[in-house]
């Protein structure tokens, strides 16, 4: 999962980047509305955390312009917590609304909920054969036994699980698993797929050569 954080306050921005990286997300950050809008247009994010109050182009404006081209899930952060602000924000196309100060756990949980809604998935766990993926704890068990996955392996598996039944192209995976500073040449997807097959079984992920990867619905 890859998210964009648009926040003008450096301390909060860096804290959020660190928090989401530790949670295994690929994270890009923007310090102002113009930059944020550009990135939001250029890349396919799974979610955007957008600050309401920013000098120059504010969150409301970013959202208004973004919604004219894209429906990426947006979580608004604001210090202004009046009913009127919330209503305006939601009506402009924000998918959720969180008032500062907030508890990190709530932000993470709400973001997971946004991603689930975006993929039309109900619960926070996936069951594929005897493999269970817990997206809250970010843990995978096979036949009840926990399997240690690297952050990248987990992210790949989770994304394919969200898109189960569809062939996910390599470029879509690069886009959602790596942040803007990473070099895909040192991160071949096939490497992580091989390692996932070794750990979880060869049938789990299917390679469609020249097209992409798929976790089949039947498996």
């Amino acid at each position, binding site marked *: 999962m890859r998210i964009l954080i648009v926040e003008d306050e450096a301390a909060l921005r860096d804290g959020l980047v660190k928090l989401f990286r530790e949670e295994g997300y690929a994270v890009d950050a923007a310090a102002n509305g113009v930059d944020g809008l550009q990135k939001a247009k250029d890349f396919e994010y799974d979610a955007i955390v957008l600050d309401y109050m920013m000098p120059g182009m504010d969150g409301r404006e970013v959202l208004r312009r973004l919604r004219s081209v894209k429906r990426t899930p947006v979580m608004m952060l604001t210090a202004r917590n009046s009913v009127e602000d919330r209503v305006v924000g939601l009506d402009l196309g924000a998918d959720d609304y969180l008032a500062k100060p907030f508890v990190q756990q709530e932000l993470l949980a709400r973001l997971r909920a946004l991603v689930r809604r975006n993929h039309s998935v109900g619960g926070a766990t996936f069951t594929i054969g005897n493999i269970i993926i817990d997206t809250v704890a970010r843990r995978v068990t096979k036949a009840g036994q926990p399997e240690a996955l690297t952050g990248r392996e987990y992210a790949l598996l989770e994304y394919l699980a969200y898109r189960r039944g569809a062939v996910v192209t390599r470029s879509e995976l690069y886009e959602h698993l790596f942040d803007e500073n990473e070099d*895909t040449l*040192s991160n*071949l997807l*096939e*490497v992580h797929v091989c390692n996932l*097959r*070794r750990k979880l079984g060869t049938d789990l992920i299917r390679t469609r*050569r*020249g097209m992409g990867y798929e976790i089949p619905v039947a498996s």
Partner: protein
Amino acid sequence: MVFHSIRWRILAWNFGLLAATATVLLVAFYQIERQNRLQTVDLQLREMMSKHMGAVNDLIPGSSGPRSPLLTASGRPRTPDVAGQRQAKAEAALNALEKERIWVFVADMAGPVQFRTLAAPIEPDLVERCREEVMDEAEAPTKGRQPVNQIVSYLGQRMLVHRPPGQMIVVFGTDTQALEAELHLLGWKLALGGVVLVFLGGGIGWVLAGRSLRPIDRIAADAEGIAAGDYGRKIDVEDTESELGRLAVVLNDTFGKMNEARDRVTQFTADASHELRTPLTVILSDSQSALRQERTPEEYRQALETIKHAAVRMKTISDGLLELAHGDLAQPVEKAPCDLADLADESVALLARLSREKGATLEAKLESATVLADPARLGRVILNLVMNAILHNPAGVRVVVTTARVDGQAELTVADDGRGIPAEALEHIFERFRRIDPEGSRHAEGAGLGLAIVKQAVEAHGGTIAVTSEVGRGTTFRVRLPEAKP
């Protein structure tokens, strides 16, 4: 410290074992000899007693013969007033006993000595001792009990104490002081012999240990020389079949290999620092000249551009060095089954844009071939080979990547129809810091480590890599890896 040397230890053990063995043997010998000698004495005493008891009995006061004074003035017992036959018999018996140096005395269990021959030592505690020896059982006052015989050694006397039924004891004894002295002397001789034996054996051991350890000293001296920096030095081997000779051969082999490794590391370090120094020099000189005076933004931009370029080159070099160092450590990774074709497919797809930018045509003919591998390393092998083919050839080059199963092996080939590599450069192509691009070539920023890394990774997977090339017609790299069951 010298006492911790092997020679001293061998000596100590040799000494200890010899001394223990000699002590046990000599003590045993002494004891057996002593027992033998005393048994002979005992046997004689018993024999004499059984032979002359009758006669002695006659001399006991209160026996069947009439009472008589104990001794004459000459020390001979006054012949009791008995029949001449008896007297003669007693005389004969006493003479015979004297000749055998055996003395006799007769005493009451509680009372005084009643009869003694002249030689009999009748110190009170000797007599008391004889009584004690036969007392325990004698105290049972039952009549008709068995007579008791007991051997007693006391005050240099060996005695056979006889107690017939009744309150008397008859003691036959002989002086064993001479015998004891003789045994004492024997003991001293044996001890002296033992000491001489132990020292002689120890000395021989010392010499032998010294002789057999001398080659070790020589090996140590040679090894010290090597440790002191004389890396080319070899250990002198006299006899390659002996245990120490084999050790020397093994050590020579080990030192030789370490020496080679050291040379390689020295060379590698020199190469690496030289390679890193070039871009560093660029960074230093460009930044200094940019700072010397006020420049136009365009000039600053150019300086920064050059510096960035040099920094990228340094990063490439240090990344490569790091990877090679990891490979040298040969850390075991968990190998996963990977399809060479899928890895090649993704690599080709990732390099499609680069090849378009460089005006190259990139093609793939892929057939599944499963190998057991560390996918990350294998992926870098493919990327490296394909990238090399694109970057080291002029625009318009055609690069073909194929994967297939050949002779039960998985094969990957990367072929180009580019400029080719001269034979003399081809020989060294997998060595570290070998760049075959002509001076001023557009890809001169490569670190010259890529193919060394590739070869190391392929060999770590139990595979082989070969290269064929013809100048003007192109180059083909062929990697073969053991095939795994898909």
